[in-house]
């Protein structure tokens, strides 16, 4: 009896969450994949089509916004990695007993609403704002100079919002590295750069990839930065999905685009878990 209960325990414990996630995460996702294959409109109802033409049509019809999202996502993720690695490295190796204080400071933007953070940047970067206004008045910048509604504003906004999300997984892996390995490399006359490339970089790879996955997926699907900081020329897939739902009410289109995004994510997750295992996947996620 006791044995049986011990055997059942993990299933009983995970049941409530599984029911919830099935009902409000997995089944909606699956039914959206189904919706992607449907043709019709909200009034006359939907019929299922038996091919993926809709999905392919959605992809080719919005190819430019997909390509743009992909580039913005890649650029912002690479830049975020480049700026957060040194910060995570310094905190993990040099911040001593103030480590958690520094991490806390890096996390402070989380205490301000996402939309307010983006809004504050719109404010800072605005054409006649307190930053560019005086510079233009002094003649340092030409009157026509602008950052807002360029792609750089959108990428900058994405970088800002993903910075802390990338520092955390990097910090977790760097913090765990056994310092003796590095000392050993040193004793064997490895130059600091060699020790870094051959030891620290490979050991921090899980964090680099976990962060990349999280930040890249979030940024590819984002539409708020593009909507507030960008202009008509910076439309991303997220904006198209949002419009398809709320303006044209073309649910199959929105579902197709979402499915493509989700498919990209699932491929990335599979590759990641193949490379590093599934235990690690969560450890760096939070």
């Amino acid at each position, binding site marked *: 009896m006791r044995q049986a209960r011990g055997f059942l325990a993990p299933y009983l414990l995970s049941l409530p969450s599984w029911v919830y996630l099935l009902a409000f995460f997995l089944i909606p996702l699956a039914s959206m994949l189904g919706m992607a294959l449907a043709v019709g409109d909200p009034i006359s109802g939907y019929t299922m089509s038996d091919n993926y033409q809709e999905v392919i049509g959605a992809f080719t019809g919005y190819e430019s916004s997909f390509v743009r999202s992909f580039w913005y996502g890649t650029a912002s993720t690479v830049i975020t990695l480049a700026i957060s690695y040194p910060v995570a490295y310094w905190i993990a190796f040099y911040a001593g007993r103030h480590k958690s204080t520094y991490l806390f400071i890096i996390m402070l933007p989380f205490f301000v609403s996402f939309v*307010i953070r983006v*809004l504050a940047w719109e*404010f800072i970067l605005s054409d006649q704002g307190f930053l560019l206004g005086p510079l233009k008045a002094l003649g340092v910048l030409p009157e026509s100079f602008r950052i807002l509604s360029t792609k750089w504003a959108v990428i900058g906004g994405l970088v800002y919002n993903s910075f802390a999300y990338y520092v955390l997984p990097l910090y977790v892996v760097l913090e765990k590295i056994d310092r003796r390995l590095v000392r050993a490399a040193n004793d064997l006359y490895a130059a600091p750069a060699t020790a870094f490339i051959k030891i620290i970089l490979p050991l921090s790879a899980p964090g680099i990839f976990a962060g990349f996955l999280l930040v890249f997926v979030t940024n590819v699907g984002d539409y708020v930065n593009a909507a507030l900081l960008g202009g008509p020329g910076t439309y991303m897939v997220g904006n198209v999905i949002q419009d398809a739902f709320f303006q044209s009410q073309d649910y199959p289109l929105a579902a197709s685009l979402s499915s493509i995004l989700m498919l990209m994510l699932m491929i990335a997750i599979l590759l990641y878990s193949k490379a590093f295992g599934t235990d690690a996947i969560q450890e760096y996620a939070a």
Partner: protein
Amino acid sequence: MSTITARMPSAHKPSRLGERILACFTWAMIIYTMLPIVVMVVFSFNFAPGGRIALNWQHFTLANYGDAFAIQDLTGALQHSLEVAIGSALISAILGTPLALALARHKFWGKTATDIVIFADIAAPAVVVGASLLSLFLALNLPRGLLTILIAHVAFNLAFAVVVIRARVSGLDRALDRAAADLGATPWVAFWTVTFPLILPGIVGACMLCFMLSIDDLIITTFVAGQTLTFPLWVYGAVKVGIPPQVFVLSTFIFAGGVVLAVINSAIAHRKSAA
């Protein structure tokens, strides 16, 4: 001291110069991180002509704080946000704690699948989660409002709660609850008297994270809110017509409240671990 370091340079002190550069860079990034927050707080004290935030500094005023709750819709939206944040944090912790225990302490069939689902939930693009939930609510004919917002927020918070609580459970010494079992405690009693008090800081931390994520969320909420507005939705909607200063004032309140709570929580956790 300096001679020792000179003779035995450890790779982690490659050079003082390198460390200085890294430290400067970190501080530069901290300033970059803080810039929008500072702007928000400073401009909440700026005179706002015509009830709209001015792009440039006018003059110092406390009037915005006096009128903090003057816009009824905005205050109502904030109230919705707080209700959903508290509700979704509590529900996520209640649902997530058992799963965290299962994942941290048991090997079972489907564990890998659970890991992947949890990660997918965290990593899924917000537009996709929002769009799929809206499809579900449309299919079920469920009227959009506070309830659907709450359902959606639990759906994305749950995974974060599980990960945070799981980390805390993994750090526990299993000998403690085994001892309780040996002394005749049922699993239920052992949980409430031994395990629960020990993982409580993790649960509180998870609740706080969920609260912040919930009060922050714009994209998923946009899809499932219907006519109901939360604080981020109200702000996003107001962008086109101009932002009233109350937005910065209320955000400053949220920011200050969050920081104070986080500091208290970490102070308590520290004292407990020190004792």
